[in-house]
């Protein structure tokens, strides 16, 4: 498994910390993990490692847009029409905004087995006082634990389609928990945003692909 974890702002720092659960699960399942983090998440480094190791599973954390997934300081790593073939023969999970809209389909056309990502912005809430300790942030957990599960299900041996569906089931579970009458009103206001992420998370390509 190859994973990128830039940490140049609050959002990427949250993804950096929460991705540790993915890495731990992969190691538990005896997968070798190439963890490229911080300032190392740049095009040259990522290209070199993927070309050399041909990982069966690539997990990106970072910012993105319709045509790009970024690394440290938002340096473009994968761009539509530029270097999608780098991801050929791999299963990809891109936790980045909007990349499944254009980049994902383009990657699949150029050989990516399956591409799981988001067709619109991936949003989440944080507790302000928790920014220095993201893993203790129970508000962010509502969003990041379900999205983590895409990668966790894949490293446990499930197919891309099943990983996507199980992740969505966790989003739905959190939504239903927040809908109960004993949930404070201010927490129920998180529901539209969880629903947004769930609805825009898609699996493109071969949903039976495994890593």
């Amino acid at each position, binding site marked *: 498994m190859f994973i990128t974890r830039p940490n140049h702002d*609050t*959002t990427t720092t949250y993804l950096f910390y929460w991705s540790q659960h993915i890495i731990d699960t992969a190691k538990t399942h005896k997968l070798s993990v190439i963890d490229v983090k911080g300032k190392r998440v740049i095009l040259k480094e990522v290209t070199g490692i993927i070309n050399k190791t041909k990982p069966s599973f690539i997990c990106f954390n970072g910012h*993105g847009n319709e045509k790009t997934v970024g690394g440290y300081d938002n340096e473009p790593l994968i761009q539509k029409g530029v270097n999608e073939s780098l991801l050929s023969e791999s299963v990809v999970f891109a936790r980045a905004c*909007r990349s499944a809209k254009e980049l994902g389909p383009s990657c699949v056309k150029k050989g990516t087995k399956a591409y799981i990502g988001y067709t619109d912005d991936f949003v989440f809430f*944080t507790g302000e006082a928790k920014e220095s300790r993201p893993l203790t942030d129970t508000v962010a957990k509502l969003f990041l634990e379900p999205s983590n599960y895409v990668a966790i299900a894949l490293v446990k041996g499930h197919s891309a389609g099943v990983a996507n569906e199980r992740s969505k089931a966790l989003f739905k579970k959190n939504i*239903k928990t927040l809908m109960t009458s004993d949930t404070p009103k201010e927490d129920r*206001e998180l529901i*539209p945003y969880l629903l947004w992420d769930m609805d825009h998370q898609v699996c493109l390509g071969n949903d039976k692909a495994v890593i």
Partner: protein
Amino acid sequence: MSDRPLSISDAEIRKLVVARLRSFPSGRKMSIGADGEFTKDELIDRVEKDDRIGKKIVQIQLSYLQSLKNERFLEG
């Protein structure tokens, strides 16, 4: 009574979204990708200004209301 469907202006929708945002506790921030993190007051300001972030918040809220109308949460 008229049978015409109830119509609501964009400005009225923004007022409703702002009212919902006011229910948020002050200590939370929303992360919207590379656009950054926004406090409750900043989100309210963006919705009132109707800029890209404000439009996104409105879009998320309207999508949620549509899902309620479709009774999606009654599914298993």
